[in-house]
């Protein structure tokens, strides 16, 4: 199980000293598949590794540095586009971690730009982004209506010339999900992140990362999301976190995230049966970078939709998607 090898290397970087060639091949393939190669490269920087490995790690660190630079530039462009609106623009996820220089940002893969804005200003934000060159990434009437009615974000937009995506959120979980995080207090408690932009408070960052991973997703990329959480927990104040967790209705999820983070990346934890199922899903990756345990992976895919929607709505949604040719990975 190479995902286990990856987790061990992140928890205990010195453990890579014992790897043979097959072990390194498995570790690197799993780390690339989980988009944790640069995180791994940062963690084991300075340790002796085989000559064939060092350039791969150096490349990964350079890629991560470029990604962070690009992400911050994209954030700067969004800030510029939205400056006149007098709206609090809150950076989320990777871009926020990079802007703040957080532990969770070291070597982190950064994909799209995610921002959070007040829901009652969405129209103005949308118009300002259009005016500055963003456009819909994949115009589809069903998706558009679905996003607007039920989701926590607008349909993805892409910049016409820079080819970078932006996700505009108005809260951190779909409106159909059972927990209802309080978007207004997220924005009110946000902290300056430079350049007129904001980021969530340390405790709300944990809430968001946990909501994204455990209350919403199918655990694709879960090892990376859990690594984020592991880093973010270390920077959050436990008492303040308890208060925020209660406001957002995420207490059980955050408790589970603590156990999983401690179990995989920390000093260990007592896991429930349900935790073990999640852990098995997180570690479903072999030495060729392939996803394993197909049935378990599919079960979590189905569950992610179950969590998002009431049954009838889910059935209608899956039927529409199926007819359009969408198949789960």
């Amino acid at each position, binding site marked *: 199980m190479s995902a286990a090898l990856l987790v061990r290397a992140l928890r205990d970087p010195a453990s890579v000293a014992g790897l043979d*060639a*097959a072990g*390194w*091949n498995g570790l*690197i*393939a799993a780390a*690339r*598949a989980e988009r944790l190669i640069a995180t791994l490269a940062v963690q084991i920087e300075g340790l002796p590794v*085989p000559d*064939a*490995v060092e*350039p*791969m790690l150096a*490349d990964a660190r*350079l*890629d991560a540095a*470029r990604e962070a630079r690009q992400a911050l530039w994209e954030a700067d462009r969004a800030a510029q586009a939205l400056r006149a609106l007098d709206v609090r623009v809150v950076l989320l996820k990777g871009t926020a971690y990079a802007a703040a220089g957080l532990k969770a940002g070291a070597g982190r893969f950064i994909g799209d730009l995610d921002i959070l804005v007040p829901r009652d200003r969405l129209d103005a934000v949308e118009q300002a982004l259009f005016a500055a060159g963003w456009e819909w990434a994949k115009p589809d009437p069903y998706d558009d209506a679905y996003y607007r009615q039920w989701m926590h974000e607008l349909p993805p937009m892409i910049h016409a010339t820079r080819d970078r995506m932006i996700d505009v959120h108005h809260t951190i979980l779909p409106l159909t999900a059972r927990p209802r995080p309080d978007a207004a207090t997220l924005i009110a408690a946000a902290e300056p992140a430079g350049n007129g932009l904001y980021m969530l408070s340390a405790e709300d960052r944990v809430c968001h990362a946990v909501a994204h991973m455990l209350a919403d997703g199918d655990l694709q990329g879960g090892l990376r999301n859990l690594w984020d959480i592991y880093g973010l927990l270390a920077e959050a104040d436990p008492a303040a976190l308890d208060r925020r967790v209660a406001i957002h209705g995420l207490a059980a999820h955050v408790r589970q995230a603590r156990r999983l983070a401690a179990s995989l990346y920390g000093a260990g934890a007592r896991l429930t049966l349900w935790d073990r199922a999640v852990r098995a899903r997180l570690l479903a990756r072999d030495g*060729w*970078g*392939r996803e394993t345990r197909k049935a378990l992976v599919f079960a979590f895919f189905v569950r992610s939709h179950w969590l998002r929607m009431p049954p009838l709505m889910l059935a209608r949604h899956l039927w529409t998607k199926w007819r359009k040719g969408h198949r789960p990975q």
Partner: protein
Amino acid sequence: MRHELTLRIGPATFRIGSAWRGPIDQLSRLYAVYPDAAGAIADFTVRLQPTSAIRQWVRPSIFITGDHGLADAAPMRLSHGLLAAEMGMNLQMALGWRRHLLLHASSVEKDGRVLVMTGESGSGKSTLAALLGERGWRLMGDEFALLDMATGAIMPFPRLVSLKNRAIDVVSGQVGEGRMGPLLAATAKGDIRHMVPRADAVARMDEGGMPALLLFPRFGHDRDVRPVGQAEIFMRLTQASTNYVALGEAGFTALTRFVRGVPARAIDFPTGDDAIAMVERLWEEMA
């Protein structure tokens, strides 16, 4: 994966896994003169996997992926498995290599100096490199020329040469059947046959050379030689590079130096023999 092979080509090592034996057997035969890299730590993993569980056995269909993949890559027939493996290696290089500036170009070397040829698919750059490689030049590669960002040298990446359609007969007649792969008929790019580079080109695959001439060949037109402005060269090479953007300032600096320092011409030619005569003359005059 059920079947696997590790290959080293120039500076890059590939671990290729396949759900089927066929592509691995073909690779083993065609890469027999390359160094044995079994058990090495690979720069890239390539996977040839069934598009779904059933398609391993019934109408086998290959999905090419690996460390770096494209979600919408078209599946391929098992009979084209060798091509799938080659495309898989290309994909890893194109998306993941950072140690050189990658130019989508062929290159050949003489007296330690390198001729680089770039152009669209079908421009004749592969055929020209293959033919020159049989006529006193050393073939360095037909898909990627690797520009060393520190020294400005071109480093070899001498994979199998991919010959398409009419080029197949032209080249196979000259190199002999022993160095040719199987005919892959009716691929997305037409008929394809792979050619094994000469053994001495493989033996010298760690040895680079300084670029001395850049050509933009174009097959199927009347003989013509034109100068190309540096700004145009720069633009065309940024488009011919898959990692130019990813390399940032280092890539810009290396490419600028290449464009300023290497003389360039666009050449049109109606046949391979015309092309070789034109190249040899330009080489005498300019390089």
